């Protein structure tokens, strides 16, 4: 049981988290934050294994992982 959470305001939509997620949990969403970035959302949240690779790759500290 694991969960990934995106802090929408911190996300800049670079996509590093998406590229390196081993389970394709994440994708660029269709909503924008106050800076105008289409922030990342967990599209397959139940597949998250809590490896936190997304968080480590995220430059902006926008990802929190729970396990």
């Amino acid at each position: 049981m694991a969960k990934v959470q995106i802090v929408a305001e911190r996300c800049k939509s670079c996509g590093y988290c998406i590229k390196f997620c081993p389970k394709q949990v994440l994708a660029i969403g269709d909503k924008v934050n106050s800076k105008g970035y289409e922030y990342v959302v967990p599209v397959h949240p139940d597949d998250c294994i809590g490896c936190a690779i997304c968080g480590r790759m995220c430059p902006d500290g926008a990802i929190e992982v729970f396990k």
Partner: protein
Amino acid sequence: MEKIYGRTKTIQEDKVSGFCPGCMHSTVIKLIGEVLEEMDLVDKAACVLGIGCCGLHMDYIAYDNTTAPHGRACAVATGMKRTSPDSLVFTYQGDGDFASIGLAESISAANRGENITVIFINNGIYGMTGGQMAPTTLVGMKATTAPKGRDPKEHGYPMHMCEILNQLTAPAYLVRTSCNNPANVNKTKQAIHKAFQNQLDGKGFSMVEIVTSCPTNWGLDPMKSLDYIEEKMLPEFPLGVIRDR
């Protein structure tokens, strides 16, 4: 459920950095903060930021910092560490800062074996000023001051700071890492940890050169800039430990 990964407390919660999407300055400052927290050194940290994009950090990091004149971070850090030996003094500099305008300060601090840590961000270009040629710009790579690309006949070749400093006797630790994939991010974090530990152990000058991207001035989106690092930057700047004493 327990939080197993989140933003380091050393980065301001209510402030989003001004760095471009995919810029690895943010990645590195995050790693520095994580290491400071893990080593319980936040209250000893004294960071000397270089000029350029490095300076954007000043607003976001929650520990002591100052900004050195362009290129002089190693000199400022020398004065700080010599008079405040209990502080963890590190510089954070880009390639223009460390390898061009600050070359004398960088090499001389390394040669004196100053007990400081240098975090050297090598993205092969001047970021803040808008994509001018750096000493680390790759041959053929376009820059706003080398519109046809770096031409060795006119501009010489990329400078390899780890290898240049490796000619000196004094430095303790010289390592080149990257942040282009999870394994390299982990290695960068380990290298920063070791470099800080060296300072605690009084081993002298340690430098972590980190090959990063500048998607904006490379004219690539963040994803393609990851490929550029792998395909172009890393063959020119091979990763690994160059010196460990």
